[in-house]
């Protein structure tokens, strides 16, 4: 579908120490998503990824990287930093899920409430957000996406190659199964 003249491949390889990863390192196929917590299309993709994980089990490794487009989504940057603040306390995926399950409620009070709900150190969480401690990390993700040819959200990469097709369940599953075969 896409015909950009550059190879649209993941510019920064998945890093076990740095990336947020679900699924085993030796999985047959790796799906990387660049996403924005306030983007409605990413919200639509969220349950699809969950379904793919349920279907494929240990065959699938899933990686999420931040790509907040604040110009369009005023809460996206702070939400991404909230997910990273959760990660700093070992709870990235729980926060990630809460954010996507509550996309319409991403104000500062809401983020604070999600931290309380997770039972993490809320004082530290609030301080991280107020001081934008995780902004450099979010920007790093964002720029790695730009260099990988991300042009909107969500953008998916299957074993490092950009998935330039629909991200409905059947299409993505077929692409993942093909890559895993």
């Amino acid at each position, binding site marked *: *579908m*896409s*015909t*950009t*003249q*550059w190879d649209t491949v993941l*510019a920064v390889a998945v890093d076990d120490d740095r990336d947020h990863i679900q699924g085993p390192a030796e999985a047959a196929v790796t799906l990387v998503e660049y996403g924005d917590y306030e983007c409605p299309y990413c919200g639509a993709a969220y349950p699809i990824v969950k379904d793919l994980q349920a279907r494929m089990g240990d065959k699938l490794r899933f990686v999420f990287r931040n790509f907040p*487009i*604040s*110009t*369009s989504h005023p809460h996206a940057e702070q939400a991404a930093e909230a997910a990273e603040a959760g990660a700093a306390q070992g709870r990235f995926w729980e926060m990630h899920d809460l954010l996507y399950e509550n996309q319409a409620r991403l104000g500062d009070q809401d983020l604070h409430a999600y931290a309380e709900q997770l039972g993490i150190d809320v004082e530290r969480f609030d301080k991280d957000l107020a001081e934008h401690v995780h902004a450099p990390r979010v920007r790093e993700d*964002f*720029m790695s996406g*730009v*260099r*990988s*040819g*991300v*042009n*909107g959200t969500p953008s998916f990469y299957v074993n490092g190659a950009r998935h330039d097709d629909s991200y409905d369940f059947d299409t993505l599953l077929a692409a993942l199964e093909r890559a895993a075969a």
Partner: protein
Amino acid sequence: MTDTAVDNRPGPLPPGTEAPEFRLPSTPDQTVSLSEFRGRPLILAFYPEDWSPVCSDQLALYQELLPEFQKFNAELLGISVDGIWSHIAFAKDRNLHFPLLADFEPKGDVARTYQVYRATDGTSERALYVIDADGIVRWSYVSPVGINPGADGILRALESLEEGG
């Protein structure tokens, strides 16, 4: 590097071409001309129309990347055939803080000069130009109209300028 033509249109002006001078409105009472940007790199982003979904995403992405472009001392100009009042409303609605030029009268004149006008649609292509400090085209690219070209190509072109490539 501009090997993307899939039909018989001539394709954008190739690297090495002197970028044609233009002067277009950027506000109701101001104009911008190419020659004002001599001495620094310039990115021209031709896009089909204000308000269309892909354009909005593309320009929002470029807005996010203004600090990266500034690292190269590069300026960004958006250009479409829309009138200046549409541009003003569009920029305000989408939080865009770079100039949008109105290639409105004669309609599409600059797009034609840059060989990126789509006569069948009455709009320009979705085309990118990176012009160097001497006013020479260093990179040009036409994206399929429905596809957001992203920004990696722009950044690579700016990097190769810095490297003296």
